[in-house]
């Protein structure tokens, strides 16, 4: 008996801590997102096929009004990127609210891991699955509508995409921590941030169509500059319709990435304490 207890004790001392614990937490939280998609194949129809049809509607609007062909490509690329915005909005920002309602949030806080690692796990799992969806929309859309790409610089394109993702999911982690304080309104606020962001971030048209200050304000959302830079890099006429030069946009995205990731860390720590103090972690105002 004593041997068994000491064996248990030795197991306890072998528990992961520090960086290893964080890595394990990240993998553990990312796991259900990736594996969930394998168990429920229905998402392929609902998350790829249906959004593809919605994107096609905007393509045909441009065709109905005789728009130049490059606008078709703009819509396909923008449509693919909507998957990332929806993922950040529903599976990052409002996810903590949903976890609270399900009773998981209290378990996350009680567990010996950091909340930052949980958010990172959500982000990485979500990003992987969303990248699949976005790629499917991009490939199918490009084939269906004969979109031609002419990549100016693969390195810049890679840098833009990665920085956009880091900044975007950093922003998602930041807003997720703010959603810790919210209750039912979290749901509606996320709902409210869908179409207005499609509009101001120029998902279906070049952001340059807006005045400088509106476009500059919209640039706080990483997808705005990310999309603009990607369009400039993959379409021959993209540069002429770009908001800022690609170099400047990369620099701003880099800055946004740093601000959002550091901001998420501080905000999470602060709001976690605040929500514990105010007893909001387990509240369920229905």
């Amino acid at each position: 008996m004593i041997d068994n207890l000491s064996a248990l004790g030795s197991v306890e001392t072998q528990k992961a801590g520090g960086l290893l614990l964080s890595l394990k937490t990240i993998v553990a939280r990312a796991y259900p997102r990736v594996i969930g998609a394998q168990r429920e194949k229905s998402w392929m129809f609902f998350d790829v096929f249906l959004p593809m049809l919605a994107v096609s509607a905007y393509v045909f609007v441009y065709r109905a009004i005789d728009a130049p062909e490059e606008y078709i490509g703009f819509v396909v690329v923008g449509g693919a990127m909507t998957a990332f915005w929806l993922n950040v909005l529903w599976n990052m920002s409002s996810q903590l609210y949903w976890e609270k309602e399900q009773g998981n949030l209290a378990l996350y806080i009680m567990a010996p891991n950091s909340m930052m690692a949980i958010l990172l796990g959500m982000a990485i799992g979500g990003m992987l699955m969303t990248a699949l969806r976005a790629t499917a929309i991009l490939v199918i859309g490009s084939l269906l509508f004969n979109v031609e790409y002419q990549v100016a610089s693969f390195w810049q394109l890679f840098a833009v995409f990665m920085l956009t993702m880091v900044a975007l999911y950093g922003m998602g982690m930041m807003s997720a921590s703010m959603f810790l304080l919210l209750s039912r309104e979290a749901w509606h606020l996320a709902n409210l941030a869908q179409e207005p962001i499609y509009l101001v971030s120029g998902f279906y048209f070049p952001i340059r169509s807006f005045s400088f200050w509106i476009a500059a304000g919209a640039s706080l959302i990483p997808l705005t500059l990310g999309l603009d830079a990607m369009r400039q890099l993959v379409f021959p006429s993209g540069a002429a319709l770009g908001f800022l030069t690609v170099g400047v946009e990369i620099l701003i995205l880099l800055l946004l990435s740093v601000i959002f990731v550091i901001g998420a860390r501080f905000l999470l720590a602060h709001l976690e304490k605040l929500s514990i103090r105010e007893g909001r972690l387990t509240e369920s105002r229905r």
Partner: protein
Amino acid sequence: MSSPGIASTGERGSGLGFWRSFRMAAWLGWQIESNWTDPFLFAIYSFVKPISTAAILVVMYGIITQGDFESPIFTYMYLGNAFYIYVGAVMAGVSWAVIDDREHYKTLKYMYVAPINIPMYLFGRGVAKFVVGSISVFITIVFGLLFLHLRIELSAINWPLFFLALTIGVIMLAMMGLILAGVTLLIAHHVWFLGEAVAGALYLFSGAIFPLEVLPPAIRWIGYIIPITYWLELIRRSLVGEVAEAFPTLQGLSSQQILGILVALTIIFTILAVVVFRWAEKRAKERGLIDMVTNY
């Protein structure tokens, strides 16, 4: 003796039982939809979303046509988009209640053991979205009239046709919502808003924002078998007769003929909705999905 407001077993399948299920669900849906904030914020919430959706199209159109908002195609597109809000709202309102009750409030199993009629309950839950959708449609059209020179003359509107088409259309959309509710009973909540996703997809085929002639012939026929196409055409004809009739899609048909087709398709979708929902409900019970919780 039964308590007031509670349907007895005998009343469950009767007209009175249906009405009670519907009325209480409508009240519940409205509370869920609206009491999360103060009326001011709720009003902002109700108009920012539809105006943004309309503005995406307006900006796309404005960029390409250099702001030619006098063109009939703009009125066609704008009105189609405005009334299409109902499609997402009603279908999502009815189908979302399944996930909301099953996974959020975890009350769907209690609904099944309560003396209520489930389809009527789901229709009732959709009422709140219908009301908010109506406000959104109204605001979008007023915005178009005030700022975008939308070509609607109040004196020329065919009000009886408008209200008749609107009523039939809402019934038809509720039936499509019931089909989706049945599907939702069988799937996990990967998809947050199935109703809106399907509405987004049907946007393509219904001629809501462009005439069906723009679609390739191979897929154009889909537009002719979905009732939303005829419903939107009737709404447009009732509001701006000569603008709507100028487009070739249903030019060869009179408003009465289109109304007849809409009624026939609504009846077909009603039968389909009842059959699909009953089948899905049976499958969900067999597979133990009524109280499924999925959290990825």
